[in-house]
């Protein structure tokens, strides 16, 4: 068959020629495929095979029988899940901690970024920024350990101060009432400074003329923040909020696991810590996989929903 080599007109290619063209492109990039192969293999083995492994949630998985040999039990584990009072306790704890994160720790970096942006002394601004990023690079173990040595009844600095001010000492580490405040304060301490980076960048990109116009209209600094800066960074806030919602059930295994003890379990046990204890500690592989599966599905649905909602209101969303 003669190939159409007309210049200036759109080429009409036959199926075979299109396939050849595709092959040519793929062959041209054979080294590139070789480059990405190890990376893709990694994602396949350690991300996609575990997704396939989720089917043990529908089996009575026995390690010596494997996935192919274990008996199928359908939705039994899920039925047990919804009948288990512990499950609802964990569900409630997860939701409460998530709500605290969205309502309390999420807005803190936005406020901090607004305040930092108002600093007129650049050197002071840079110093503050440098300092507030530091805790982000500490592990949760370090953050929790520092809290422990400061909060312990046994000579911790906070209780020493309380005592010298004639207040009662507080057992922060074992008292369930203190778990949530401690959890959220640690998150703010570790992440708030780091979180300002993105908001600050968005604020710097705001057109300065808008501020000039507002000043002429007599807006003071607070009003300028409210009516110009905040609306200008709205889309960034929304994208980050969607991402946060996507993490709804990813509250951080490490952080909670480190704070968890038998006296605050009522308020501290979340899906991840429960999966760890029930699954790896007690060997209930199938049941705890069902718990994890439930968590993953809820998270996926929420992020899709949040994204849809953002798009509906004219924002970009994350995909």
């Amino acid at each position: 068959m003669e190939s159409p080599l007309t210049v200036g007109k759109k080429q009409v290619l036959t199926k075979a020629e299109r396939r050849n063209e595709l092959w040519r492109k793929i062959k041209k990039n054979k080294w590139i495929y070789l480059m990405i192969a190890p990376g893709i293999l990694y994602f396949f083995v350690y991300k996609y095979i575990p997704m396939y492994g989720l089917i043990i949630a529908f089996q009575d998985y026995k390690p010596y029988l494997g996935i192919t040999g274990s008996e199928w039990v359908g939705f039994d584990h899920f039925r047990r899940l919804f009948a288990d009072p512990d499950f609802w306790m964990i569900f409630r704890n997860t939701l409460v901690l998530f709500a605290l994160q969205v309502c309390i720790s999420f807005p803190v970096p936005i406020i901090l970024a607004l305040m930092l942006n108002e600093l007129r002394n650049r050197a002071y601004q840079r110093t503050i920024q440098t300092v507030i990023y530091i805790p982000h690079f500490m592990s949760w173990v370090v953050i929790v350990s520092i809290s422990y040595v400061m909060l312990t009844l046994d000579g911790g600095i906070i209780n020493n101060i309380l005592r010298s001010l004639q207040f009662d000492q507080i057992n922060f580490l074992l008292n369930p009432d203190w778990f949530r405040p401690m959890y959220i304060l640690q998150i703010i301490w570790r992440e708030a400074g780091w979180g300002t980076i993105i908001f600050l960048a968005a604020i710097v990109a705001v057109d300065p003329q808008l501020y000039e116009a507002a000043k002429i209209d007599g807006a003071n600094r607070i009003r300028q923040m409210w009516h110009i800066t905040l609306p200008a960074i709205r889309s960034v806030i929304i994208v980050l909020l969607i991402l946060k919602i996507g993490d709804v059930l990813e509250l951080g295994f490490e952080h909670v696991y480190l704070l968890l003890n038998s006296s605050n379990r009522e308020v501290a046990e979340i899906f991840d810590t429960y999966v760890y204890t029930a699954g790896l500690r007690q060997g209930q592989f199938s049941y705890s996989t069902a718990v994890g599966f439930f968590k993953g599905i809820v998270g996926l649905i929420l992020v899709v929903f949040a994204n849809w909602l953002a798009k509906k209101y004219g924002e970009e969303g994350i995909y």
Partner: protein
Amino acid sequence: MVGDKTISSRIFNATNMIILGIIALLCVLPFVHVIGSSFATGAEIARRSFLLFPTEFSLDAYRYIFSTDTIIRSLGVSIGVTLGGTIWSMLLSVLTAYGLSRRDLVGRRFLMFFIVFTMLFNGGMIPTFLVVQQTGLIDSLLALVIPVTINAFNMIILRSFFMNLPAGLEESAKIDGCNDFGVLFRIVIPCSLPAIATISLFYAVTYWNTYMHAILYLNDPNKWPVQVLLRQIVVLATGINYDGAEYTSVPPPEISVKMAVIVVATVPVLLVYPFLQKYFAKGALIGSMKG
């Protein structure tokens, strides 16, 4: 015109500066307290309720924790995992990011989706544990590295950076006879050093801080990285002589020992930080704005 010189504006500035100053202090004071107490003598800790800088300087706590192999061994594990893991992760991340940054690559959109989807949904702890077990990594230090080889987010930041390099660079290198690997290693990487440095440090910090994978996959206490040891000593208060080692010196007060272990587990990150802070901020921006 309402300028920056009005009284209300000055009050606003002053309040703002003071509040931010206090916040910054709250971020660092706990660290100062921990470092200060780790160098204090037992008598001073008992006497003073609020200690930032010790008046009598003492190295007893450090002498004590370094008098057995326990800490040294776990520091060795952490350093090895951090160095090896960072090199391994960067190699694979750069290769993948560069490949996927090439606009003429057939199947690129599908492969990106294949990777991004893993950020939205994953198999979770137990199925992942089973795969790690099947691949023979339980109780091997490789378990801290191989299952987290590429962080999808880091890879995407690198890829955005590569995509923003001028297209002419690649073409001229190819005309000069470079193949794709040549282009990557001779042209693209040298031109991307800020991004490479940033992402390397993200990986290094993650590996230094690794904890969860160690408790999931390592049963042998001799292989514990320093973060796991830190938890044993501070949170569980099991002491550092779990292996029954003999101590040569008299134990200093428990609290300054705990402080010293926290310092040891933190110092490497603190050392790296001031030099590379500017890169961290830049790198995080590339990712957030163009991800």
